[in-house]
């Protein structure tokens, strides 16, 4: 079902947990299938210095969460905003068609976190 890379990320997910001093927290859940992801960002000078996640979901959801955190770590906020669900799936070497929706969870949670971050920063970040 899943390729080796997905299984590896499921089995050894990177950046699992919470960040007590997070600068932004994002959350996303699929009401339909119940999957939920929470993402914590530590941002310094517009760069994502640290990231953690918690995910309730299937193997694809967990692996996508893990992969997303790897992708965005060290990226600027604006670069991170460009990361799409497809990027996550691609980076994992592909997901079964029926599981693609699970990877949506991760990027959407990230976008939620970034939106919260920007809100917190106020209009300063606006331009």
């Amino acid at each position: 079902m899943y390729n080796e890379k997905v299984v590896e990320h499921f089995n050894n997910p990177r950046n699992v947990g919470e960040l007590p001093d997070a600068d932004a927290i994002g959350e996303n859940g699929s009401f339909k299938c119940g999957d939920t992801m929470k993402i914590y960002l530590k941002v310094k000078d517009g760069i994502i210095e640290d990231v953690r996640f918690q995910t309730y979901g299937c193997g694809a959801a967990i692996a996508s969460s893990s992969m997303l955190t790897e992708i965005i770590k060290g990226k600027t906020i604006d670069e991170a905003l460009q990361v799409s669900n497809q990027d996550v799936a691609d980076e994992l070497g592909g997901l079964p068609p029926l599981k693609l929706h699970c990877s949506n969870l991760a990027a959407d949670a990230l976008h939620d976190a970034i939106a919260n971050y920007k809100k917190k920063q106020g209009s300063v970040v606006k331009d």
Partner: protein
Amino acid sequence: MNKKNVYMDHGATTPVRQEVLEAMLPFFSELYGNPSSLHAKGRDVRKAFEEARRVTAASLGVEPDEIYFTSGGTESNNIALRGAAKKHGSGHIITSSIEHHAVLDVCKDLEKQGFSVTYLPVDKYGLISMEEFESSIKPETFLVSIMAANNEIGTVQPISEIGAIAEKHKILFHTDAVQVVGQMPLNIKELNLDFLSLSAHKFNGPKGVGALYKRKGVKIDPLYHGGGQERKLRPGTENVPGVIGLSKALELAVGELPQKAEELAKLRNRLIEGLVRIDDVVLNGHPEKRLPGNVNVSFKYIEGESVLLSLDLHGIAASSGSACSSGSLDPSHVLSAIGLDHQTAHGSIRFSLGRGNAEEDIDYVLDIIPSIVDRLRQMSPIRKESC
């Protein structure tokens, strides 16, 4: 701990046992005649085929001419339900909300064709109520189909009571016994059954072959037409090796009952007891009225497929009623019907025990599970407090 290979998905399918495969082998390349052929090559096969029917019937305590061989449980269910419906033309059918899709979706399709259907609810254990059943019977009701035991949660229905009520009201009674045949003793003739479906691959027979018991004298219309095999109810050149395998597997399985069922139930109870000792693990289905090999539990705060995948990485084969695992987004209709909330339903795992499972397998699973559950719970944003 070394990775073991522990197969606990006997509810999905089972390996063909050696004696069964050996019985089948001559029918591929030596005894290959078409049973309908008049020459010796055909007659020899016809003889063996009808002997297999006799053995099948004897194992079920019914007459040979009450047995129709099919391609599996799905086809048996379709032939019984659609055949009775076609014969009756119109009317009302009663079934339960936790049937296998091979009954449930047939009923939905029959609704589209103008039949009316009552889907009986079940209690939290998965049992239908006899009062609700009886009061749902209308003058135009011609058929009730209630599964003998549920494939997901293992709940065993009181089919002898259902049969008595069906008889009283003179309606046909079908049971999907795919999960029961070969696993539990069954006395068809005491049950007032008109139809019973079974599938060989659930009791260590081959895949792609099943049977329908149809009580003598009960008339239904055939769905498919062709060469007239199986007294026109299921035409097509017979799956001879498959039927030989079915009869052998059934004979062996039934011969080992009830002892085998008791052994299995012991293993089952050991596994259940071990599992519910873990925090926030609940048993689904009935505590006693359940298949001897069925264990179904929900691990709260974590999702079933991720448990399944983790088990798989430890060599343990199980299955889940979780949405994500089946590709569909909703949790199984069975888990919803017994009232599980979305999240508990999503955390459900079925271990189905069978031939070959031993105590050490149970202990291996019980050793492995806590760390799997811990790991996934630590990853989960959902906590006891937050629920």
